[in-house]
C-alpha cells in the first residue's frame, strides 16, 4: 500500500507549516532519510527528510500554502499503486482539498472560529425563559449580615451567632474596627437568656433559644439545600448566561381584548375548537414577526442574524420548572392548527413526552402567566433569540371611551428585547402591530 506523507510537526509549538520548497518531483525515487522538502515552521525553515522509501506518486501540497500539521502532503509507493485508494484509506481527500480550506489567511482564521450555532443555542436546554424575578430576597436574614453593609465579625463569632440564633447586627462589636468577636456573642447570648428572666420558664431555656410572647420556645428549622434536577441546573445556567450577556430592555403595552374575547366565544360555539386567548396571542405574534423580521432575529456574538422561519416557543410550567415546546412555522399555520399543536405540545410536555427536537429551534418565545392572575411581568430572553413576549391576564378594567367611563377587557404585554439586536422603536412597532391584530382579530383570521 502506498504511504501518505503528512506535514510533520517540527517544533513543540508548531501548529501549521508551509512547504517552502519541494526537493522532489512526482516520479522521483526517494530513499529513507533523503531530503524531500523544506518546511517553514513557527521557528525556522527546517529540512524534512523522508521516513519512508518509495517513488513519489503524487505531491499533494503546493509550495507556499499554510497547512495544519498532519495534512497529507505527498504519497509514496511503488509505481502504479492506487493513490486514491491510499488517500481514502488514510481517511482524507488529500491536500488538494485541505489547503484550499486553510489557505487564504482570512478564511483560515474564520474556519476554526467557534461560531455559536444558532440552532444549537435553544436546543441545548429544555428549559428557558423564566419570568425574570428579581433575585428573591433571602427568606430570613438568618446570618444577619445582609443589612446595610457587611458586619465585621470573626469567623468564630459568626458561627457562634448562627448557633445561638442571634443576629450579628444586634451585637455591638468590641474588636478592632467594631469587629464582633467571640466574647461579644457570648455576652449577647447570656443577655438574651437573662432578659426574659421574669418568665418562669426562662431558667430552663438554653442560651440562644428564641421565645414567643408567652415564653414558649420558637421552633428552629434548619436551611436545607435542594438537590437540583437537570432541568433546574439547565435553567439556572442558561438564565444566568442570558442575564449576564444580553442587554435587556422592556416595553409594555395594553391591548383592548374586547373583540378578541367575543371572537373566542364565537369560535368556541361555532367550530367546537378549543382556542385559548394565548392561541390568539401566538397567532398575532407569528404574523407580527413576519411583518417585523428585525424582531425575529438574534445576536450571534458578532452580528445580528435574522431568522428565516418563525418558530414560536411557548413557555409551559411543569412540576420541575418550565419547558418551551416549539410550534414550528407558526406563521404558516391557521388558528385551529396552531391551537391544536400548542395544546398537544403542552399536554405532552407536562407528561415529559416531548422529543428534544420538539423543544428546540424556537426563534421567539411567548410566556403567559395570565392564567395565574398575573397582570404583567417581564421575562428573560432565551439565549439564541432576540426577544420574548410576557403576557398577563385579561382583566375587566375601568376605561374611558369617548369621554364615558366604562368597563373593558384589557391585557398587558411586555416585550423584552435584546438591545444589541433592536432598539426601542423596533420593539414598539412590533408591539403596535400585535396590538392591532389582537384588537381586530377577524382581520387576522381573514
Amino acid at each position: 500500500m502506498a504511504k501518505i506523507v503528512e506535514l510533520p510537526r517540527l517544533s513543540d509549538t508548531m501548529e501549521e507549516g508551509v512547504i517552502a520548497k519541494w526537493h522532489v518531483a512526482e516520479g522521483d525515487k526517494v530513499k529513507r532519510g533523503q531530503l524531500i522538502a523544506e518546511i517553514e515552521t513557527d521557528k525556522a525553515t527546517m529540512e524534512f527528510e523522508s521516513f519512508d522509501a518509495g517513488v513519489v506518486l503524487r505531491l499533494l501540497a503546493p509550495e507556499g500554502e499554510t497547512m495544519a500539521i498532519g495534512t497529507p502532503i505527498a504519497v509514496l509507493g511503488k509505481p502504479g499503486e492506487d493513490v486514491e485508494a491510499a488517500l481514502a484509506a488514510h481517511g482524507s481527500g488529500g491536500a488538494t482539498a485541505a489547503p484550499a480550506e486553510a489557505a487564504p489567511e482570512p478564511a483560515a482564521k474564520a474556519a476554526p472560529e467557534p461560531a455559536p450555532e444558532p440552532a444549537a443555542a435553544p436546543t441545548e436546554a429544555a428549559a428557558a425563559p423564566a419570568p425574570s424575578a428579581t433575585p428573591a430576597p433571602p427568606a430570613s436574614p438568618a446570618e444577619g449580615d445582609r443589612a446595610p453593609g457587611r458586619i465585621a465579625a470573626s469567623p468564630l463569632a459568626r458561627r457562634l451567632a448562627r448557633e445561638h440564633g442571634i443576629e450579628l447586627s444586634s451585637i455591638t462589636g468590641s474588636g478592632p474596627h467594631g469587629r464582633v468577636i467571640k466574647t461579644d456573642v457570648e455576652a449577647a447570648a447570656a443577655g438574651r437568656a437573662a432578659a426574659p428572666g421574669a418568665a418562669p420558664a426562662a431558667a430552663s431555656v438554653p442560651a440562644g433559644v428564641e421565645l414567643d410572647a408567652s415564653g414558649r420556645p420558637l421552633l428552629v428549622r434548619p436551611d436545607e439545600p435542594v438537590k437540583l434536577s437537570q432541568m433546574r441546573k439547565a435553567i439556572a445556567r442558561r438564565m444566568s448566561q442570558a442575564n449576564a450577556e444580553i442587554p435587556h430592555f422592556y416595553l409594555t403595552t395594553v391591548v383592548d381584548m374586547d373583540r378578541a374575547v367575543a371572537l373566542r366565544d364565537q369560535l368556541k360555539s361555532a367550530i367546537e375548537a378549543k382556542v385559548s386567548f394565548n392561541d390568539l396571542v401566538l397567532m398575532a405574534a407569528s404574523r407580527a414577526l413576519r411583518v417585523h423580521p428585525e424582531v425575529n432575529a438574534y445576536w450571534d456574538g458578532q452580528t445580528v442574524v435574522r431568522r428565516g422561519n418563525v418558530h414560536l416557543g411557548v413557555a409551559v410550567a411543569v412540576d420541575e420548572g418550565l419547558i418551551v415546546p416549539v410550534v414550528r412555522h407558526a406563521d404558516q399555520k391557521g388558528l385551529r392548527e396552531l391551537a391544536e399543536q400548542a395544546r398537544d405540545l403542552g399536554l405532552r410536555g407536562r407528561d415529559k413526552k416531548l422529543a428534544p427536537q420538539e423543544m428546540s429551534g424556537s426563534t421567539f418565545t411567548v410566556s403567559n402567566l395570565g392564567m395565574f392572575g398575573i397582570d404583567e411581568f417581564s421575562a428573560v430572553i432565551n439565549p439564541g433569540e432576540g426577544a420574548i413576549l410576557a403576557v398577563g391576564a385579561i382583566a375587566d378594567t375601568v376605561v374611558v371611551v369617548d369621554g364615558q367611563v366604562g368597563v373593558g377587557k384589557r391585557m398587558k404585554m411586555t416585550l423584552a428585547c435584546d438591545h444589541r439586536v433592536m432598539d426601542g422603536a423596533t420593539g414598539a412597532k412590533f408591539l403596535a402591530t400585535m396590538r392591532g391584530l389582537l384588537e381586530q382579530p377577524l382581520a387576522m383570521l381573514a
Partner: protein
Amino acid sequence: MPLLQIREALRAAIDEEMGRDDRVFVMGEEVGYYDGAYKVTEGLLKKYGEKRVVDTPIAEAGFAGVGVGAAMAGLRPIIEFMTFNFSAVAFDQILNNAAKLRHLSNGQFTLPIVFRGPNAAAHMLSSTHSQAFESFYCGFPGVKVISVATPYDAKGLLKSAIRDDNPVIFFESEVMYSVKGEVPDEEYLIPIGKADIKRPGDDVTVITWGQGVAVALAAAQLCEADGLQCEVIDLRTLRPLDDEAVLTSVRKTNRAVLVYHGWPYGGTGAEISDRIQRLAFDHLDAPVERVCYEDVNMPYAENLENLVIPSPERAAEAIKRIAYVRV
C-alpha cells in the same frame, strides 16, 4: 539524666548511627581534622577514620552531588553544610537531584541522605550569612525538613533522619549549639512529622520552630502578666507538617500567632497560616498573626539586627493583639 549541649546531642546521634550502620558516613568542609566548624563532629574522625569522616574542598555542589550519588548506590551520607547559606551553591543538587531522582526513576532509587547544618540568623553575620532556608526547602516535594530547638529533639530527630530512606534537610543554629538540655542515656528516636507542645495553654496558640521556640516561650512568659496562657507548639518537622497538632490547639484557643526566623513573604509561615484559615476557619476569633523577620536583608549592625529578628516583646504584642487584650 545527663545535660548535653545541642552540638553534643547531634554528635551522639551521628556517633550512635555510625556505630550501628557502617554505611553511614559524614562528609563536608572541616568535619574531620578540624573536628567540625562548630564541633558537632568532634572526635569522629579519630573514632571512624578518613573513610567515614570525609573532609571536602569548598565545593558544595560537588560534595552535595557526591552525597546524592552515594545515597543512590546504597550509602547513607550525612552531608554537613558549614552553614545552610552555602547550600545555595548546591541547591541544584538538592532540588533537581536529591528531591527528584526517586520520582524521575519511578522508584528505582532511594535517597537516604541527610543535609544538615546551621540555618537562619546567628549574630551579626549580615545578609549573606543570616538566611533562613526553610521556605526554600519546604517549597517542593521529595524532601523532609526538620528544625530542632532542644538537645533532646536534636538527638532523637537526627537519628530518625539518618535512618529515613528519603532526603532530609536538617536545620540547626549557630547560636543554639551550646543550649543545654536533658538527654536520656538510653537510645530513643523521635518520629519525623510530630510537633511537640513545649508549653500548654488555653488562650492563644503560638506556633514556632528552631530559633523561634525560645522567643515564643519568653513571649508566653511575658503574656502571663495579662492573664493569658499561651500554648507553644514546636513544630520540629516542617515538612510533613503536623496539621493535627496545630488545628487541635487552634480549635481550642480560637487564635494563632506564628513566631519564626524567616522572611514574611510566602513560605513556611504563610503555608501554616493558610492551613489554619482554611481548615479551622470557623474557629478563628482573630486573624492569624506572623512574627518573623522584617522584609529586609539582614543588617550587620547589632541594633538594627535586633529590630529585624523577632523578639519576645514583638511576639507578646501580637499575642495580646489577637487575644483582644487592650495594651
